[in-house]
């Protein structure tokens, strides 16, 4: 029934090339998280604002980011904007698409974390003579950070996996891009994609493990 003979040696020989691709994968994921967190904070402030002109665009961003396929978001950044004459390279388009998605999800994560902290905490800080900014920074923010930490790390894992969608907009240097190129050259589809899958798995596991360690070190209460 099967007459496919596995040829792992070829795949192992390509390992350095694939690991180099994995570095690009990590680079895009990390950048998309850093920019995504910054935007998410702005979106969260916007969504909680009393001004409709701030609330509406922030809400629209969150709704689209969370309720449409990530693939479309990346497509839009590349081909969609291309229709308007704005050309983003595959790298930038992929980064933009994932950042867009991250910001939408993280905005809600941060808002939820903020809501989870009773406003009596703020009052207690103010009663001790702290101004609103100081009370927020010293009392509310650290608690928010703890609540949002693991969900944020989950999003990081999603970001790593989402980078694989870059192949659809011509991304060739990340792990999936490299794998796809190797596959096209050799037709050793199973071996190469199995290897790639294992690398993705190990990366995401490492990220989760590291974040558990960090959380355990950081949040002693």
């Amino acid at each position, binding site marked *: 029934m099967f007459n496919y003979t596995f040829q792992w040696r070829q795949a192992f020989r390509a390992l350095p090339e694939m690991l180099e691709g994995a570095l690009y994968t990590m680079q895009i994921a990390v950048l998309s998280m850093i920019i995504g967190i910054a935007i998410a904070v702005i979106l969260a402030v916007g969504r909680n604002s009393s001004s409709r002109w701030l609330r509406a665009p922030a809400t629209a961003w969150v709704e689209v980011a969370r309720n449409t396929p990530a693939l479309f978001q990346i497509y839009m950044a590349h081909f969609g904007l291309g229709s308007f004459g704005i050309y983003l390279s595959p790298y930038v388009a992929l980064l933009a698409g994932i950042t867009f998605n991250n910001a939408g999800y993280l905005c809600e994560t941060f808002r939820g974390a903020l809501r989870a902290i009773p406003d*009596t*905490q703020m*009052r*207690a800080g*103010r*009663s*001790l*003579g*702290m*101004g609103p900014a*100081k009370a927020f920074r*010293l*009392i509310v923010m*650290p*608690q928010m950070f*703890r609540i949002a930490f693991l969900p944020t790390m989950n999003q990081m894992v999603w970001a790593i996996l989402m980078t694989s969608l870059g192949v659809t907009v011509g991304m060739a240097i990340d792990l999936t891009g490299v794998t796809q190129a190797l596959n096209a050259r050799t037709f050793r589809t199973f071996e190469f994609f199995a290897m790639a899958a294992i690398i993705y798995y190990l990366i995401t596991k490492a990220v989760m493990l590291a974040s558990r360690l960090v959380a355990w070190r950081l*949040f*002693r*209460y």
Partner: protein
Amino acid sequence: MIEIENVHKSFGALKVLKGIDLTVDKGEVVSVIGGSGSGKSTLLTCINGLEPIDEGRILVDGTEVHARSTDLNKLRRKIGIVFQQFNAFPHLTVLENVTLAPRKVKGMGRKEAEEIAVRQLEHVGLGDKIKVYPSRLSGGQQQRMAIARALAMSPDYMLFDEVTSALDPQLVGEVLDTLKLLADGGMTMICVTHEMRFAREVSDRVAFFDQGVMAEIGPPEQIFGEAKNEATRKFLSSVR
């Protein structure tokens, strides 16, 4: 001295304070009793400027709390307040809870702040708990930590809002003992309380609040012995 003059305060259409007049002298302990919703907590949050008022004025050492020019952050340094729900900062150890404001508000050095904090914590019987997080403390211990936290700012006035009513009965005593110690030390205090024995034993004067009005005020012997006001008598017979 805290001078409260004709203070009115509403939440929307609900009139919560309807012309309160009360002067608390240095070193005096005034207990405030009264039914639920009569405006006792609201009065305390008005005194330290957490809530605005609609009419009248409140002076603390001659400074008008609600005047535009008043620096509330500075004024609050000398008015400690402790709430019913302890409000421990869960992300900080007991010691850090107490040193936070002296360091970040007063700009005190870590060492000096810690010395003061340890002294205050020992004073309230938490000398052996300084390294733990509040989640490891009982309710009574958390409340005593909140008292130490307020005292570490060396306030001239302390406001207490039903600091024992969220506690199990067997923990009430330890917190009341702390308050008694403080009163004996000469602290100026306003205590909203449901503990009639405490009000009777510790206060110089007891004020009875009824629906936003201070219906009666006088020494404990008068309020608990021969209250003139009908509502006061009714309230007291209901809590006994």
